[in-house]
């Protein structure tokens, strides 16, 4: 019976039953099929967007300046690019994210490994982390600006601060929850404490550390925009805020789309690294 139902489906819904059946655990879709689906979703989104903004103009629903079509957004981005006014903003944002996230990653990994491994360090560091963590990072952004000025340091420092927490906590958790049987096995093979750490705890903790890195990277793009709203002269966040001041909605949307693309690219980069470092993991476990 199900095969009949699948065959009777038409067009868009033809593959629905099998899609539902395979779900999360099923066999992965053929590569071409999955690319086609993803591409279709993006094009579909652009189509709906174009349709709505077109209807706004045709039916005279409201001032079309509030919802420019995708072609206007693309036009605004191309326009900025041709005036050599795009790259400086992209570069400024990217540089802040790379420096801020990189510093956060280094600090969080080192502190997390130490706090996970040594009770003394954990007892020293954890209270401070647990007290600061519930404070939304944006609440302390004005403090950063007062302390280190409105220059680059406050922006990269803010990213470092905000991304530290998820990466630190993931690392501590990863180290503390290494399968105790793995430790027993290694000790029975003669591993001394430093060998346990380097040869068992570190590799066992890596998958979760990578999860923390991806969380941190997402957060980096999340917080950079806000800090660029406040007292910045370049950056994609600045472009958005600048667009707001002058009612340049296409520029606002264009900068937002670029931020999305950069975030997507950064995440893909970490995933690529993850696949190389953790190539022992079966595809299903990732």
């Amino acid at each position, binding site marked *: 019976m199900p095969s009949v139902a699948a065959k009777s489906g038409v067009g868009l819904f033809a593959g629905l039953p099998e899609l539902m059946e395979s779900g999360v655990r099923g066999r992965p879709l053929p590569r071409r099929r999955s690319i086609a689906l993803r591409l279709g979703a993006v094009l579909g989104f652009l189509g709906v967007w174009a349709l709505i903004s077109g209807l706004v103009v045709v039916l005279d629903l409201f001032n079309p300046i509030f919802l420019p079509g995708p072609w206007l957004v693309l036009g605004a981005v191309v326009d900025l690019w041709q005036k050599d006014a795009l790259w400086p903003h992209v570069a400024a944002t990217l540089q802040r994210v790379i420096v801020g996230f990189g510093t956060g990653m280094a600090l969080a990994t080192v502190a997390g490994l130490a706090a996970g491994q040594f009770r003394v360090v954990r007892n020293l560091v954890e209270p401070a982390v647990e007290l600061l963590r519930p404070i939304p990072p944006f609440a302390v952004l004005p403090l950063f600006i007062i302390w280190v000025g409105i220059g680059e340091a406050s922006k990269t420092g803010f990213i470092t601060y905000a991304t530290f927490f998820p990466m630190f906590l993931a690392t501590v958790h990863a180290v503390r929850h290494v399968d105790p*049987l*793995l430790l027993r*096995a290694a000790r*029975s093979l003669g591993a001394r404490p430093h060998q346990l750490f380097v040869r068992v705890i570190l*590799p066992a903790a890596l998958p979760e550390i990578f999860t923390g890195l991806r969380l941190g990277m997402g957060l980096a793009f999340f917080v950079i925009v806000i800090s660029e709203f406040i007292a910045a002269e370049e950056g994609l966040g600045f472009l958005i805020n600048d667009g707001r001041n002058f009612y340049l909605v296409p520029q606002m949307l264009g900068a937002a789309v670029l931020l999305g693309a950069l975030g997507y690219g950064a995440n893909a980069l970490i995933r690529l690294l993850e696949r190389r470092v953790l190539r022992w993991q*079966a595809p299903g476990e990732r």
Partner: protein
Amino acid sequence: MSAASSSRIEMQGVSKSFGAGPNRAIALAEVDLDIEDAELVCLLGPSGCGKSTLLNIIAGFVPPTTGTILVGGRAVNGPGADRGVVFQEYVLFPWLTVAGNVEFGPALKGVEAAERRRIAARYLDLVGLTAHAEKYPGQLSGGMKQRVAIARALANGPAIILMDEPFGALDAQNREVLQDELARIQRTEKRTIVFVTHSIREAVYLADRVVVMTSAPGRIKEIVPIGLSAGRDRFSQKFTQYEAEISRLVKAEVAKVHE
């Protein structure tokens, strides 16, 4: 570490209790047991008889509450490379290849890469996994994983190997194949093996002596020497007699739990 050094295990008055006060649970009570060089001893008993606890004490994972335990004349103080362990859950290092797992012990001791590869090749050949040396544990079946774990333990050269229900997670066919392999390996390797199981057949097939334990608290009920030669026949009359004899001892213990 040479396998020739004495690997006698001597236990005297070994007991283990968990918790304190009214919640105190006695897992093991006053175990006296000596295990000789190159002997294969099976610890047999119903669940909760403390046989795994006893193994963990010999391995040095948990200290005994009372009593002394000597390995090669020296008191046990934590786990060590002189006592290899094979776990029911395999416990391979998933980020290392099969060969990497087998080389783990030698690598800890700083054995050179070429020599490590030679050792790994030898033991992978012994367990029939040469073709799978470069695979990761996640790509192996349960039976293959346990073969890797056995090769890993042997390759580190311990005089003693402790096995905690190593075949308990395998299906019946794989179980017998691995029992055959272990018996064959033991004929050439001659290590001292302490093997925990709740399968009477398995114990009679593998053991030089079967130590039958009582249920909580765990005590030694009886030690049954198995007078069968190598290459045992699971269907011979003598084999069946041993099975029946030990079965009676174990059943009495299980019945006690249900009283």
